[in-house]
C-alpha cells in the first residue's frame, strides 16, 4: 500500500494557517483587508488581551450573500479573482482565498453579515473550521467577525506568541498603516475598551497622520506629489528635525497596499541625504500608484513583499522627488515651545526691502569672470588697422556674451538660495562657538563650525568634480573574486571602471586583477573603496563619485573649518553667513547636525511674557 495520503481539509487548513495566521496581528490584517475589499467606509476593530481572548472586526461593507457564507470558509474560495489572468492585475488586497478558512481553522469564529439595509442578516458559528451553528438574525448591512480563543487547537503556536504588549504593538502597527493607506475609511481601534486610534475617514491623509503621530508631527510634514509616465508618488515626509531611531515609520504603499521594500526605503533615506543625523530616520508616508501589471504581489502569502518591474526607475524618481521637495524648504530649526497653538492662517504680507548685502557678492563675482577676457598684450605686432578693428569687434562680442553669462549666474544664485536662509546680520558671538544673528524673522543661533564645514564641503565637492582623474599604479596588484553572476556584470562594465581610474582586468573566470586605482583612495582603505566602487557599478551601472567620496570630503572639510572656541570678528561672521546663504543646503552640516536654530520674535516675546 502506498504511503501517500491526501490530507483531509482540516489539516490542510491548519497547515495553511501556520503561514497566514502567524499571530493575532495577522488575523486583524486579514479581516480588515477583507473589510476594505468589501468597500467599507467604516471599520471598527476591537481587541481584548492583545487579540488572544477576542478580536472583533466590524464593517459597513457589502456583506455576504447567504449562499456565499459557507463557501467563504472553503480554501481558495474568493470573490476577488476569477481567472488566472486576473492574477496579473490584482487590485484588491486579498485574492488567495486562504485567510478565512485558515483563521477559522485555529479559532472559534462567529460571523454576522447582511447585504441589505432591511435588517435581515445571518449568523454562523464555527469551531476549528467546523460549522456548528447557522441562524437568521437581525443585522445591519455589513459584516462582523468575532474571533475567540485563537490557537486553542494549536497549543504549540500559542506557546510561541510574544507578550501581550508585543502583540498589541503589531496590531497597532498594522492598523496605523492601513489607516494611512485608506484615508477615506474611518478606522477605530479599541483595546481592552481603550480607544487607541480613531480616524475620521474624511480623505485627508494629514488627518490620519495627526491621529497617529500627533498634531505637532503632522504640522511639520511636507506634502509630496510627483508623477512620471509609469508612477505617481504622493504622500508626506517629515521635516528633517523630526526623526525616529528606526525605519519603521517609513510607510510605503503601492496601490493602497502596505509593503516592505528595502531598496525603496533606502531611496527615501537617500533623498534626505545629509539632512539626517547618523542613525536617525524620517517619518514618511508614501503612496505609489502604478499600473498593476508592473508589480508582482504574489510573492508571499503575507503580501508584504512585492516585486517591481521598473525598480531602478522608481527608486530614482522617489529619491529625486524627496530631494527636490526638501530643497525647496526652509529648514531652520524652530524652537518648539510646547508647540504654540497656531491661530487661523493669516494672510502673509511681506514688505520687500533693499538688499544691503549685495556688495559682497559683487566684489567676488564679476572679477573672476572679468579676468578671462582682459585683453592680453598680443605677441604679434598688429598687422593692419582693419584686422585690429576686427579683433576689437570680436572682443566686444565676447564681452557681451560673457556679460550675459554673468547676469545669469547672479540670477541663478538668487533663485537657488532665495528664501531658504534669510539675510542674517551677526550681532555677536557666544562662547566662541555660536554666532548670534538677527534677521527679519527673529533671532538666529548659528554653529560656526558646522556652517563653515558646510561651506567647505560644498566647495570641495565642486572642486572634486573639476579635478583631473589620476590613478596610482600598484606594484603588487590586488586580486578580487566575485560570484559568477556579479563577475558577468563586472565584465560588462569594465570600461566604466577603467574610465574612473580603476584599472581592472579579468583574471580567469570569476577573478579580477586591479593594477591601478584612483589616487584619492586613502591608504589602508583600498579594498573598502574598491569594493564600494564595484558595488555601485553592479547596482546602478554607473559610478557616483560624489556618493563614494562624500565621507572623505566631509572629513577633510571638517579639518579645514574653524572650530569652536574661536573668536570671529564681525567681518568674518558676515562673510561666513553670506557664504552659508549661498550653499545648496544651509541647514545641516555634512554629518547631519543642524547649523541654524531660529527663535521667532514672537517666541521670544512669549518667553518674556510680553505677549501671551
Amino acid at each position, binding site marked *: 500500500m502506498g504511503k501517500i495520503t491526501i490530507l483531509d481539509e482540516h489539516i490542510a487548513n491548519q497547515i495553511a494557517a501556520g503561514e497566514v495566521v502567524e499571530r493575532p496581528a495577522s488575523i486583524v490584517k486579514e479581516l480588515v483587508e477583507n473589510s476594505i475589499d468589501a468597500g467599507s467606509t467604516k471599520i471598527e476593530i476591537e481587541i481584548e488581551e492583545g487579540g488572544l481572548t477576542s478580536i472583533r472586526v466590524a464593517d459597513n461593507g457589502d456583506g455576504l450573500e447567504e449562499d456565499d457564507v459557507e463557501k467563504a470558509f472553503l480554501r481558495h474560495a474568493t470573490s476577488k479573482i476569477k481567472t488566472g489572468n486576473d492574477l496579473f492585475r490584482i487590485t484588491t488586497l486579498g485574492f488567495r482565498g486562504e485567510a478565512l478558512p485558515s483563521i477559522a481553522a485555529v479559532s472559534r469564529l462567529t460571523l454576522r453579515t447582511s447585504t441589505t439595509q432591511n435588517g435581515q442578516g445571518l449568523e454562523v458559528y464555527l469551531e476549528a473550521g467546523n460549522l456548528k451553528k447557522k441562524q437568521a438574525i437581525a443585522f445591519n448591512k455589513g459584516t462582523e467577525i468575532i474571533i475567540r480563543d485563537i490557537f486553542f487547537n494549536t497549543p504549540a503556536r500559542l506557546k510561541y506568541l510574544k507578550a501581550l504588549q508585543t502583540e498589541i504593538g503589531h496590531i497597532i502597527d498594522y492598523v496605523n498603516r492601513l489607516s494611512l493607506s485608506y484615508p477615506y475609511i474611518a478606522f477605530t481601534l479599541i483595546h481592552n475598551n481603550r480607544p487607541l486610534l480613531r480616524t475620521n475617514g474624511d480623505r485627508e491623509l494629514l488627518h490620519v497622520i495627526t491621529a497617529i503621530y500627533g498634531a505637532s508631527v503632522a504640522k511639520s510634514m511636507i506634502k509630496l506629489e510627483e508623477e512620471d509616465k509609469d508612477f505617481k508618488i504622493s504622500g508626506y515626509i517629515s521635516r528633517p528635525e523630526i526623526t525616529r531611531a528606526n525605519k519603521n515609520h517609513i510607510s510605503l504603499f503601492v496601490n493602497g497596499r502596505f509593503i516592505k521594500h528595502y531598496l525603496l526605503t533606502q531611496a527615501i533615506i537617500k533623498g534626505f541625504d545629509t539632512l539626517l543625523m547618523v542613525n536617525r530616520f524620517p517619518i514618511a508616508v508614501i503612496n505609489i500608484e502604478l499600473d498593476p501589471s508592473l508589480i508582482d504581489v504574489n510573492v508571499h502569502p503575507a503580501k508584504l513583499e512585492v516585486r517591481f518591474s521598473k525598480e531602478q526607475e522608481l527608486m530614482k524618481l522617489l529619491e529625486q522627488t524627496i530631494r527636490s521637495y526638501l530643497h525647496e524648504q526652509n529648514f531652520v530649526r524652530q524652537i518648539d515651545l510646547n508647540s504654540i497653538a497656531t491661530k487661523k492662517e493669516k494672510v502673509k504680507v511681506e514688505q520687500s526691502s533693499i538688499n544691503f548685502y549685495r556688495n559682497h557678492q559683487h*566684489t567676488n563675482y564679476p*572679477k573672476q569672470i572679468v*579676468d578671462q577676457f*582682459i585683453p*592680453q598684450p598680443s605677441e604679434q605686432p598688429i598687422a593692419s588697422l582693419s584686422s585690429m578693428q576686427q579683433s576689437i569687434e570680436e572682443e566686444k562680442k565676447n564681452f557681451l556674451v560673457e556679460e550675459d553669462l554673468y547676469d545669469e549666474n547672479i540670477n541663478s544664485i538668487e533663485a537657488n538660495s532665495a528664501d531658504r536662509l534669510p539675510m542674517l546680520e551677526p550681532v555677536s*558671538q557666544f*562662547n*566662541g*562657538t555660536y554666532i548670534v544673528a538677527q534677521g527679519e524673522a527673529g533671532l538666529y543661533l548659528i554653529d560656526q563650525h558646522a556652517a*563653515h564645514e558646510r*561651506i567647505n564641503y560644498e566647495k570641495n565637492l565642486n572642486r572634486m568634480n573639476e579635478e583631473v582623474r589620476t590613478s596610482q599604479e600598484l606594484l603588487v596588484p590586488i586580486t578580487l573574486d566575485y560570484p559568477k553572476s556579479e563577475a558577468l556584470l563586472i565584465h560588462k562594465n569594465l570600461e566604466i571602471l577603467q574610465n574612473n581610474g580603476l584599472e581592472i582586468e579579468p583574471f580567469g573566470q570569476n577573478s579580477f586583477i586591479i593594477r591601478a586605482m584612483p589616487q584619492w583612495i586613502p591608504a589602508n582603505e583600498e579594498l573598502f573603496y574598491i569594493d564600494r566602487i564595484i558595488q555601485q557599478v553592479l547596482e546602478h551601472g554607473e559610478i557616483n563619485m560624489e556618493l563614494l567620496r562624500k565621507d572623505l570630503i566631509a572629513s577633510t572639510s571638517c579639518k*579645514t*573649518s*574653524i*572650530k569652536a*572656541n*574661536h*573668536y*570671529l*570678528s564681525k*567681518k*568674518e*561672521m558676515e*562673510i*561666513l553667513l553670506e*557664504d552659508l546663504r549661498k550653499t545648496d543646503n544651509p541647514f545641516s552640516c555634512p554629518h547631519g547636525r543642524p547649523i541654524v536654530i531660529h527663535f521667532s520674535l514672537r517666541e521670544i516675546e512669549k518667553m518674556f511674557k510680553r505677549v501671551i
Partner: protein
Amino acid sequence: MHFFIDKNQLIDAIQHVNKAVSTKTTIPILTGIKFDLASDGLVLTGSDSDISIQVFVPITKNDQEIVKVIKPGKIVLPAKYIVDIVKKLPGSEIEFSLVDTFSVLIRSASTEFKLNGYDPEEYPELPQIEEDQVLTINSDLLKSMIRQTIFAVSTLENRPILTGVLWKLNQGKLSFVSTDSHRLSMREANVEENGLTFDNVVVPGKTLQELTKILEDDSIPVHIVVTDNQILVKMENVLFYSRLLDGTYPDISRIIPEKGKTVMTVTKQSLLDAIERAALIAKNDKTNIVKLSILEELLLEITSNSPEVGKVTEHIKVNQLDGEALKISFNAKYTLEALKAMDSQEIKIEFTGALSPFVLKPTDHDRILHLILPVRTF
C-alpha cells in the same frame, strides 16, 4: 611688479608675516600674504583680521642691496605655497615678476614657479592708527613681561575678556595682569614717564603669543601705540597690529590678599623640583593635585597621592617661616607655571588659610606676583 630680492632676507620677512596668517579663516583672501613693492622697498602684510603683521624690507641694509626694484606693483600670494616655495628655492636671489593679471613668475637659479594669486585691491586695509601718544619700552623687557603673565590667560571663550592680558599704564608704571579665574599673574615695570596713561587695555593672549615670537631679545626700544580697539607695536621694520578685547576687565584689586597669615620663604628651585616630582604621580589625575603641609622646624612636606598609581612624599627645607601651621592642596600645573615665570632664586609664599588664595612673590623685588586658588579636597 618686477623685482629681485635676497632670499634670506625674504625668508625672515615672510616668516614674520606668516605668523598672522591663519589657514582657517572665513575670509579666503586672508590666507594670502600681500606683496606691495614701492621704490623704497617691499612691504609684506599678513593678517587674520585679529592680528596683522607688516614687514618692510628696505632696498638696502648695512650698505648691502637687498631688493632691486624694477617695476613697482602689488599682489596677494597664497601663504600656504609662497612660504615653502621661498624656503626651498635653490639660489640666493629670487626674481618676482607679475604675469597675467594676478599671477607671478618666481625665478631662482634654474627654477621657475608660476603662482596664482589674488587681487590685492580686495585685501582688507590695515587699521589707521594715530600715533600721537607712544609708549616706549625695551624689546627684551616687553618680551619677559609677556612671558611672565601669558600662561595664566584663559583659553576658553566663555568669558572672552579673560582670554587677554590686561595692560595698565599709570605714572610711568606699566602693569600686566592675566587670570583664568583659577590663578592670576601680575607683572609690573617702570617705563619712561611721558604723561601717558591708560587702563583697561586688554590684549588677546594669542596676539601676545605671536608677538613674543617676533620680539628681539635685545634691549632695543619698541614703540607701542594704543587706541580704543587696536594696539600697534612698532619694531624695526616690523609693524604688529592687533585688536583689543571688548569689555571691562574684572577689578582685581580686591582679590589679592593684603597680608598672609602664614608666610614662608623658600629656595625657588628646590620647591619647583619637589612639586615637579610630586606632579609625576598627580599627572594621572586631571586635577594634578599636590598637597603641601607645613611641619614644624622649618620643614615642608609635599605629597601627592593617586589611588591607582601610588604616592610620593618629599620634605624640603624652608628658609624662613612665620605664622601658623597649614595644610593646603593645589593644582601642581598652576604652581609650576608660576614658579617657572619667576627669575629670582628665593621666593616668598603667603598663605591665608587652607581654602584661601595664596600668593607667590620674589623676595628681591615686588614687581611680580602670582596668586593661586587652592583645590578643595573632600
